[in-house]
């Protein structure tokens, strides 16, 4: 867990990609879930942030460890 956070602080690709993937998955789930309408309203912005983040962080360096 501490490795994940230190990776985030040192701008490493792995942990940041994980955060971006989580945001995309969350956004898609919010878009298609049948329970909360407000979640549907904010789904696109979450997916968009995740997708843009995913593209950006794929240029970050890999963790050498």
């Amino acid at each position, binding site marked *: 867990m501490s490795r994940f956070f230190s990776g985030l602080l040192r701008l490493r690709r792995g942990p940041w990609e994980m955060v971006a993937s989580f945001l995309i998955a969350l956004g898609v789930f919010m878009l298609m879930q049948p329970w909360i309408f407000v979640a549907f*309203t904010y789904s696109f912005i979450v997916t968009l942030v995740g997708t843009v983040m995913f593209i950006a962080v794929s240029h970050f360096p890999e963790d050498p460890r």
Partner: protein
Amino acid sequence: MSETVMDRVAKATPTRVARRIKGLSDRAIAWIFVAPTIFLLLAVNIFPLIWTIRLSFTNFKANRPNLDVKWIGLRNYERILTDSDIWITMQATAHFVFWTLFFEVLLGFALAWLINRKFRGNDLWTTIIVLPMMLSPAVVGNFWTFLYQPQIGLFNYAISFVTGIDPTSFSMIGDVALAPWSIVIVDTWMWTPFVMLICLAGLRSIPDTIYEAAECDRASAWRQFWTITVPMVLPFLMLAVLFRGIENFKMFDLVVQLTGGGPGSTTELTSINLKREAFEKWRTGYSSAYAIILFVTVFGLASIYVKALNKVKER
């Protein structure tokens, strides 16, 4: 000494052309060859995408080209994301994508596993199973409407034969509860062979020596299946899920032919809804924003999926 292909190509090049490209670096020649493709890609993919993004911020209507186009900012996105009908459409799409993928993967893998066993008539069965995939979706949609007919449909009679229910007592494409399942059944029928073929390629790529080594180590058939077959077929299976997932997310022709989005809007998938907004109501700006939302969703999903696929391949 015999002539190489390169020598023959060099000789066949007309003198005028040869004189012109003489002195160009390899990099420049490579660019000359690649440029038409890049140009085509820009013209056919990138430019329309940028144009769609631009239109999504306007109130443009394609059937009224003389009307003033106003810049309305994020209003189209706001309208879409606060529309409960679109929310229901998204749920219908999620239901369709999830269940088709579930059944196609399950049945496709099971069929591939059975076909991979050596038995008489193996090739004939493969051909028969693959047949639905070769048909046009419009044709499939059309003839399944006949199969689903309560009075004359074979499907209803088959269900009646198995369960004893009166075949005229239910209508697969007319019932609100059954219609979403009717499109799942047809898509599964049509595209399970595709998943089967990809899984079959995966199964046939596993060397027999691995199973022989596992037999020497006295691994049970169950253990061989879970520790050899499944991990080695997984990248192929994931690829099949990626292809089918993207394809089903934008499913149009088959569902339009089968149910037309009905009854009501229970089977109205996003692509059908989008087409209605764009080419029946002519709300071009609005539908551009709708298309961008779908594009970002599919693009984001495909990105994380490709990452997962690469991880599985590395193992």
